[in-house]
């Protein structure tokens, strides 16, 4: 559905996008995960035709020019900044955008109804946007992107500044849209959003894609091993006996044991815990730490995403 090849974009001395290539399949929810300033919004703007790349090629639904009217009709965008008219009501915002896309009559009414219902704002359609909470504005920002029934949806940090309730509602909306077959490009710097919503994720840093795969594929490749931490019950054994019984149970001896506290790294953490139980080694406490996108990001960039 969307294909980008070797995209480059600079703003003066700043090389914002450095040779990005990606392919987003039809009906896929594709995540661009990266810290602020990684180049995610610039990438979306390039793909949406809002900016012209310095070099590289973009193909959307077979067309190499995203600024063509036929192509634009297929794209909906919810920009990071709330792109709404605050002095218009929710319905007036949607109606205005619908008319720009040539909708009229019953079709326009139907699409307004759909967009407002999906975003949970049907009851408050007559209220001015300026009276809405941040979460409601975000939902309307999404609804405004849907009025013309796009095949492709660009969502640029759609949950920034949103309360947990509205965030969950947005997640439900996005899942619903994905199940309707809409192709979604989703940028975020929240790894849990990428994990929960995206079929595939590209990790961006300094204008480049460092890794691109399904979430579990990324974790497998870049997440490293899971960590098992447990406090053992077998207090009557001495340290040497404990170490040898543990090694016998899990079949390896590259673990740490200090004052009954075990720490081991494993590709199969659950299986290792089961083996300990089978060997009769009792556990007082157990903590399992699986690698996630945060670990992947840390391993790829040397810093944590949350620190941004």
């Amino acid at each position, binding site marked *: 559905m969307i294909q980008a090849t070797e995209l480059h974009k600079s703003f003066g001395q700043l090389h914002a996008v450095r040779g990005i290539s990606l392919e987003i399949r039809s009906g896929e929810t594709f995540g661009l995960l990266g810290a602020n300033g990684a180049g995610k919004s610039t990438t979306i703007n390039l793909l949406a035709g*809002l900016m012209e790349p310095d070099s590289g090629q973009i193909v959307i639904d077979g067309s190499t020019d995203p600024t063509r009217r036929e192509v634009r009709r297929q794209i909906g965008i919810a920009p990071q900044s709330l792109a709404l008219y*605050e002095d218009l009501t929710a319905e007036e915002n949607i109606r205005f955008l619908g008319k720009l896309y040539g909708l009229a009559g019953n079709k326009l009414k139907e699409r307004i109804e759909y967009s407002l219902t999906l975003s949970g704002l049907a009851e408050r359609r007559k209220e001015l946007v300026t009276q809405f909470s941040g979460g409601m504005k975000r939902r309307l920002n999404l609804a405004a992107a849907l009025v013309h029934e796009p095949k492709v949806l660009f969502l640029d940090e759609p949950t920034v500044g949103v309360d947990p309730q509205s965030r969950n509602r947005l997640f439900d909306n996005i899942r619903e849209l994905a199940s309707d077959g809409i192709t979604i490009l989703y940028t975020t710097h929240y790894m849990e959003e990428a994990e929960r919503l995206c079929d595939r994720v590209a990790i961006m840093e300094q204008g480049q894609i460092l890794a691109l795969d399904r979430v579990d594929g990324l974790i497998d490749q870049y997440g490293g091993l899971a960590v098992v931490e447990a406090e053992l019950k077998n207090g009557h054994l001495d340290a040497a006996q404990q170490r040898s019984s543990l090694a016998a149970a899990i079949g390896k001896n590259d673990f740490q044991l200090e004052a009954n506290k075990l720490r081991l790294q494993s590709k199969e953490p659950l299986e290792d815990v089961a083996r300990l139980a089978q060997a009769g080694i009792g556990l007082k406490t157990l903590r399992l730490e699986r690698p996630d996108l945060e670990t992947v990001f840390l391993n790829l960039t040397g810093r944590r995403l949350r620190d941004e």
Partner: protein
Amino acid sequence: MSRIITVAFKDLTVLRREKEALFWIFLFPLVFALFFGFLSGGGGGDRGKLQLAVVDEDHSDGSRVLLDKLRKSDSLAVYDESVAGTPFTAESARNSVRRGSLTAFLIVPKGYGETAESFWQEGKPLELGIDPARTAEAGMLDGVLMQTIYSDMQDQFTDPKKAKANADKALAELDKASGMDPQQKKLLKDFLGDLGKFMGHANPGAMEHSPFAVENKLKKVPVLLEEENKPRSAFEVTFPSSVTWGMYGCIITFAISIVSERTKGTLIRLRMSPLSWAEIVAGKGLACFLVSVFVAALLMFLGHLLFGIRVENLLGLALAIISAAFCYTGLMMALAGFGKTEKAVSGSAAAVFMPLAMIGGGMIPLAFMPAWMQTVSNISPTKWNIVALEGAIWRGNSLVEMLLPCGVLVAIGAAGFGLGVRFLSRQKV
């Protein structure tokens, strides 16, 4: 076209809810027209005239004739009494001027009448005091008084009967006069005798063509095509000026609206829609144009309804309003193109358009400005806007004569459009 109209009507809906913008576009110009209209005399009355306190200490026929002539002057409002209703004295008249209540005072001294028509006696001078702060009016008042005094002398020589009587009276007084140089006395007696004889034989209408008749020296001709074509009230001057302020409000409001589309992110939605850049700009321009036309038409209609402002040339007025609206729409585009933020737009507008409005006669009528300023005012769209509107409402300009101011307005608008579209299209989303 429907997309352009959709953009324009969206902007109009937004404008309808912006109370501050509505104030500057609609209410402020109306308040301006009313305030300056009433300040300049409104629909009549004495407020637009030089206010002169007069003190008649002479109470002679001569002083009464002089004061009656002053009262008939279009430029003067003559007051014999103070606010308290008591006749002015020299002191109370001076105090009224000193306090700024009146512009000037004139004292007709005792004995003025006796000597006013004398051919040889030294007359008693009139005493004139003018508010030192009113320097602009001082020269005008001097002129009006000199004209009035001179017209007294003119009366003597254009009426043979009156002139003979005065000559005879002067001869009789001369006979009684003592201590005069005999040679000087003889010369005067010869002159007055000859003058009396001449006037005694002259036909009553003969002196109307004499060199003393001021009409023979100065003939007032109408500047306007018809005598009716002059402003009947100050409102016929202030309402055209107020239109320029309404359009100035439109410029700022819509230029800010364009910049806000960018700063608030809604421009992304417009750019992502099937709208072309030209359609976006045209939609914005159409909204500004429609509001400019509406505010101008509304102000002129209110002026007509409330203060009887005439429309001599309705087609010309429509042409003037449309040209001005186009001009200001173009300037709005240029302003939006130059300004990166809302603050920059309002700052630039104040820095550029306020002075242009001032020098163009938007605040003080061009007629009151020095010659060099009137020349400079040619660069101001305000001037051409006012010239076009006045041409249509009371100057009685023909459509051909309207072409110059309207053409200048259209040219300025086109230049503004060109610059604006060029700069706007270069800006990032």
